[in-house]
C-alpha cells in the first residue's frame, strides 16, 4: 500500500491539487446567491442545479493533470516498469483523490444544502448521492484525461462530458425524488450499481490506455 502513502505525500505538498478544487467549490457555492437576488424558493430551485454542476466542475479541475504530471516528469514510465498491477495503482490513486476532494466536497455540499433548504433530511439524503456521484465523475474524468494525456484537457473535457450528462440528468431526478418523497433508494441503488461497475472497469481501461500512450 505504498502507493497510498506516496500519493498522499505528493498531494500534501501540492495543495493546488486538492485544496484548490475544494476552494473553487466553496467559491461557487458562496458566489451563486450573490449573483442574482433570488426569492427563497427560487434559490432552492437553482441551488441543486448549481450544486451538481459545481461538483462536476470541481472533479474536472481536480483530475486535470492527474496523469499528465507523472507523464511529463517520467514517473509514469517508472510506474509501468515497476508495478505489476498498474490498474490497481490507478484505482488507488482515484480513491485518494476522492477521499481528499470528493468527500470534503460532498460534506460541504450537504452543509450548503442544509443552509439553503433548511431541511436536515434533505441534506442527509443528498450526502450519499454527492459521495457516489463525485466518485463517478472522478473516474470518468480520469478516463477522459488518460485518453488525451498529451493532448491537453480540452479534448479530455470534450470527450468526457457526453459521458457525464446522463448522470447529471439522473441527479436532477434524485432531487425531485427526494422532494416528492419518492423512490430515492431506487436511485441510490442505481447510482451505486453504476459506481461499482465503473470502479472496476475504468482503472483497467485507463491502465491499458496509459501503456498505449507510452509505447
Amino acid at each position, binding site marked *: 500500500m*505504498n502507493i497510498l502513502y*506516496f500519493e498522499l*505525500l*505528493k498531494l500534501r*505538498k*501540492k495543495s493546488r491539487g486538492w485544496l484548490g478544487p475544494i476552494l473553487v467549490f466553496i467559491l461557487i457555492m458562496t458566489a451563486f446567491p450573490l449573483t442574482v437576488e433570488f426569492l427563497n424558493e427560487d434559490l432552492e430551485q437553482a441551488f441543486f442545479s448549481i450544486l451538481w454542476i459545481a461538483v462536476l466542475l470541481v472533479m474536472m479541475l481536480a483530475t486535470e493533470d492527474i496523469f499528465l504530471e507523472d507523464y*511529463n*516528469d*517520467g*514517473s509514469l*514510465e*517508472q510506474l*509501468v*516498469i*515497476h508495478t505489476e498491477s498498474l490498474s490497481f495503482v490507478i484505482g488507488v490513486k482515484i480513491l485518494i483523490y476522492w477521499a481528499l476532494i470528493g468527500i470534503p466536497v460532498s460534506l460541504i455540499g450537504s452543509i450548503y444544502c442544509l443552509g439553503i433548504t433548511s431541511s436536515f433530511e434533505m441534506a442527509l439524503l443528498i450526502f450519499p448521492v454527492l459521495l457516489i456521484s463525485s466518485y463517478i465523475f472522478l473516474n470518468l474524468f480520469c478516463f477522459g484525461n488518460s485518453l488525451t494525456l498529451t493532448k491537453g484537457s480540452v479534448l479530455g473535457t470534450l470527450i468526457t462530458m457526453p459521458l457525464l450528462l446522463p448522470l447529471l440528468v439522473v441527479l436532477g431526478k434524485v432531487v425531485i425524488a427526494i422532494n416528492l418523497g419518492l423512490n430515492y433508494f431506487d436511485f441510490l441503488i442505481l447510482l451505486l450499481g453504476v459506481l461499482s461497475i465503473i470502479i472496476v472497469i475504468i482503472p483497467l481501461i485507463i491502465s491499458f490506455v496509459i501503456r498505449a500512450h*507510452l*509505447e
Partner: protein
Amino acid sequence: MTMTYLIKAENLSYKINEKKLFQNISFEVNSNSAIHITGSNGSGKTTLLRIILGISKPTRGTVETNLTSGMCYLGHKNALKQYLTVEDNLILQSIQHNKALDTLLKDIDLYDKLDVVVSNLSFGQQKKIALLKVFLNESELLVLDEPCVGLDGKAQNFLTSFLQEELAKNKSIIFSSHINLNLDAKSINLDN
C-alpha cells in the same frame, strides 16, 4: 548446455511513420557484462532501451527476458517531483534513510540538501538525486540512458567506479552515452 542470458534481443527493428529507425539489432546481455549503445542524436538509443524495458514494442523482432529481480531504469526524464524536497523524493522512490544513503549523499556532495526543494537544485544536482536510485538499486540489470549528462568530473568518475563495482558484483548494465565512460563494455552502434 546453453548459457543463460538476462536479455536476449533478436532482430529488433523499429519504424516510425513508415521510416526505419534501426534494423536487425540482435544482442544478448549476460550477467556481469555491459553494453554501450552508441549512435548520433536521434539514432534510436532511447527507443531501443525502452523496447528492452518493455515499454515500447518493436516493429519486428523479439526481446526475451530472464530476470529474477527486475531492472532499474533511469532515462532522460528523471522522475523527480520538482515541488517536493529531496527527502520526500527519496521516499517516493522507496529509498530508506540509512547509513548507505548517508555516505552516498556525502560522496556526491548533497548531504546538506536533503530538505531543499528539488526545483531549487542545480541541473547536475538533480541528475545526481535521480542517480541515487541507481546507486542503491538491488536489481540485476541497470538500464541507463545517458546517465552522465550534466554531471561534473568528480561525479562522472564516481559513476564509472560505481558501475565497475556493480559489474564486479555480477550485475549487468545497458547504457547509452555520448561520453566515454571508461567501462569495459561491448558497444552497439545504431548509426547505419
